[in-house]
């Protein structure tokens, strides 16, 4: 079941999503922190004392995750994508700047903010989803 991640696999996506939700709940329940990835990374760019260690620990866990999965025998193959350099770099700049200006990304706003019925997160999620559809679909047309 875990050997090929390329075709659409609803159960794997649902299951993986549930693990993401579980991790977000555990980080709040155990450590009192919000598992918003852009916030965790962004906080390291203006470090304050006592606030660096947990960010690094979480990031190390994230970075290690694909190695643990491959060691356990899961194949992490990806679909083919014909992305050009410009799209990757511009996309990265927009994601970095935008998540900081908008105070969060898919995890902070989409997974945790929506769960606490935060009106800011509802507004942010609508905004970034709309932009995603708009940009990806426009690119397809041109």
């Amino acid at each position: 079941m875990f050997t090929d991640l390329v075709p659409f696999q609803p159960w794997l996506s649902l299951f993986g999503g549930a693990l993401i939700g579980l991790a977000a709940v555990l980080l709040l329940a155990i450590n009192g922190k919000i598992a918003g990835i852009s916030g965790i990374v962004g906080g390291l760019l203006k470090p304050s004392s006592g606030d660096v260690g947990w960010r690094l620990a979480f990031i190390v866990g994230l970075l290690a995750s694909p190695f643990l999965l491959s060691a356990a025998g899961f194949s992490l193959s990806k679909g083919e994508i014909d992305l050009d350099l410009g799209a990757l770099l511009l996309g990265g700049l927009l994601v970095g700047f935008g998540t900081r200006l908008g105070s969060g990304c898919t995890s902070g706003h989409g997974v945790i903010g929506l769960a606490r019925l935060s009106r800011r997160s509802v507004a942010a999620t609508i905004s970034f989803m709309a932009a995603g559809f708009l940009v990806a679909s426009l690119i397809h047309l041109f």
Partner: protein
Amino acid sequence: MKLLSTLLIGLLFGIGLNVSGMTDPARITGFFDIFGAWDPSLLFVMAGALGVSMVGIPLVIRRGKALLADKLGVPTRRDITPSLLIGSFLFGSGWGLAGYCPGPALASLGTLETEVVLFFVAMIIGMFAHSLFEKWQLRQCAKGKRATA
């Protein structure tokens, strides 16, 4: 204990991202591109994540404290600002363009594939650019106050 639990939770989060298929940018652009072969993965991932978080997060907030911390770092702002909407729109544009958001980028950075490394470096530059923008805004604000004083 705090650091170890945080690391393990980060690992769980990353396993979720990899298993769910979110580390594959083709799935994201495939979801957002309504004119192409549609990939519904993101919908299922969000359903799985929200199914757990919509139950668990309110329970923890009601409890009011964490196992290893006295306070919960839950945001309290309620104001919907232009920064929130514009920032999120810029983020979504980049997400639809490159197919990566911050979590999946980190959860596949270790593979050192060229495309995720390039994306990550650009994302960090974007975050730095925002820090500079914030400082510039604060300076403008201070100037404005001096001018009206």
